[in-house]
C-alpha cells in the first residue's frame, strides 16, 4: 500500500484511503451536505422501507382507494410520519440530483438553467405535499361524506 503524502488543507492520511478531517476548520456547505445525505439516508431507510412494505405488501395496491388514505391520515401520527418521509425523501433526492447535474452539465449557463428548473419542480412538489398533509382536516372530511 502506498502512503499518500501530506497535502495542504487536508488532515492526516488514514487507513483505507482518504484523509482525516482537517483540524480547526469550520464545516462548509459541502461538508454539511455530505453529512445531511448520511443522516437523512439512515432515517429514510426506516421510513421509506416501512412505507413500501406497508402499501405494497401488507395493504396491496389493488386495495387502495381514497378512503384508505383518508382513514390513515385521520391519525395525526401518520400525517407526521408522511411529513417527515416526504421532506427527507425530496431533500435527499434534490441534493442527489444536484450532484448529478454538477457532474454531467459542465457549462455554467446551462447548469444554472437546469438547476433552476429541477430545484423549482422538487421544492414546489415538497410544498404541495406538506401543505396537503398539514391542512388535512379529517373531521370536515367525514362530515361531508
Amino acid at each position, binding site marked *: 500500500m502506498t502512503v499518500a503524502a501530506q497535502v495542504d488543507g487536508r488532515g492526516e492520511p488514514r487507513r483505507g484511503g482518504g484523509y482525516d478531517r482537517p483540524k480547526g476548520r469550520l464545516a462548509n456547505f459541502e461538508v454539511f451536505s455530505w453529512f445531511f445525505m448520511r443522516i437523512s439516508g439512515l432515517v429514510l431507510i426506516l421510513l421509506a422501507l416501512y412505507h*413500501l412494505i406497508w402499501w*405494497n405488501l401488507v395493504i396491496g395496491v*389493488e*386495495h387502495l382507494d381514497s*378512503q384508505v388514505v383518508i382513514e390513515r391520515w385521520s391519525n395525526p401520527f401518520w400525517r407526521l410520519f408522511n411529513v417527515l418521509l416526504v421532506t427527507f425523501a*425530496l431533500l435527499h433526492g434534490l441534493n442527489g440530483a444536484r450532484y448529478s447535474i454538477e457532474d454531467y452539465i459542465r457549462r455554467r449557463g446551462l447548469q444554472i438553467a437546469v438547476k433552476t428548473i429541477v430545484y423549482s419542480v422538487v421544492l414546489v412538489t*415538497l410544498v404541495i*405535499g406538506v401543505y*396537503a398533509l398539514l391542512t388535512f382536516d379529517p373531521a370536515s372530511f367525514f362530515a361531508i361524506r
Partner: protein
Amino acid sequence: MEVRNRGLVTALRYRGREGMWAWLLHRATGLGVLFFLIIHVIETAAVVYSPEFYDEALQIYKNPFFRFAELLIFFSVLFHAVNGSRIVIQDFWPYLMERQRQLTWAAGIVVLLVMVPVTWIMVAPVFGLAEEPGLERHLERCVERTQAPACLEVVE
C-alpha cells in the same frame, strides 16, 4: 471551469468493477426514485382536494403492467437503501474501504435475497398464481365500508 467530455462508450469501457457498477446503479436508482416521487407526492396530495380524482388516478397503478413498474420502484429503493448503508459504513469506518469489493457483493446479495419473496408477492397475483397481498384485510374492511371505492369492485 474546464469542460471534459467523455463519450458513453468510453465511460462504460472504464473497468471500475464492482464499485463503479454499484455507484452507477446508486445514481440511476436515486434519480429514478426522485422522478417517481414527484408524481407520487402530487397525486397523493390530490386526495385532500379531490378524492374522486385520486380514485381515477389510482386506476393507472392498478393496471397489471404497472405492477412491474412498482416492483422496479421497490427494487430501486431497496438497492439504494442497502448500498447507501454500505457507503455510510465505509465512510464512518474508513479502514473498511479495504474490503469495499466484498461489501459491495454483500449488499448485492442482500438485495437479491429480499427481492425473491417480494417479487413473488407482487407479481404472482398478476398471473393468477397467488392471491393479491392484503386480500384478507381488504375483505374485512369492506364488510364495514361497503361504499369505499375499492370495495365496490369486490361486490361486482
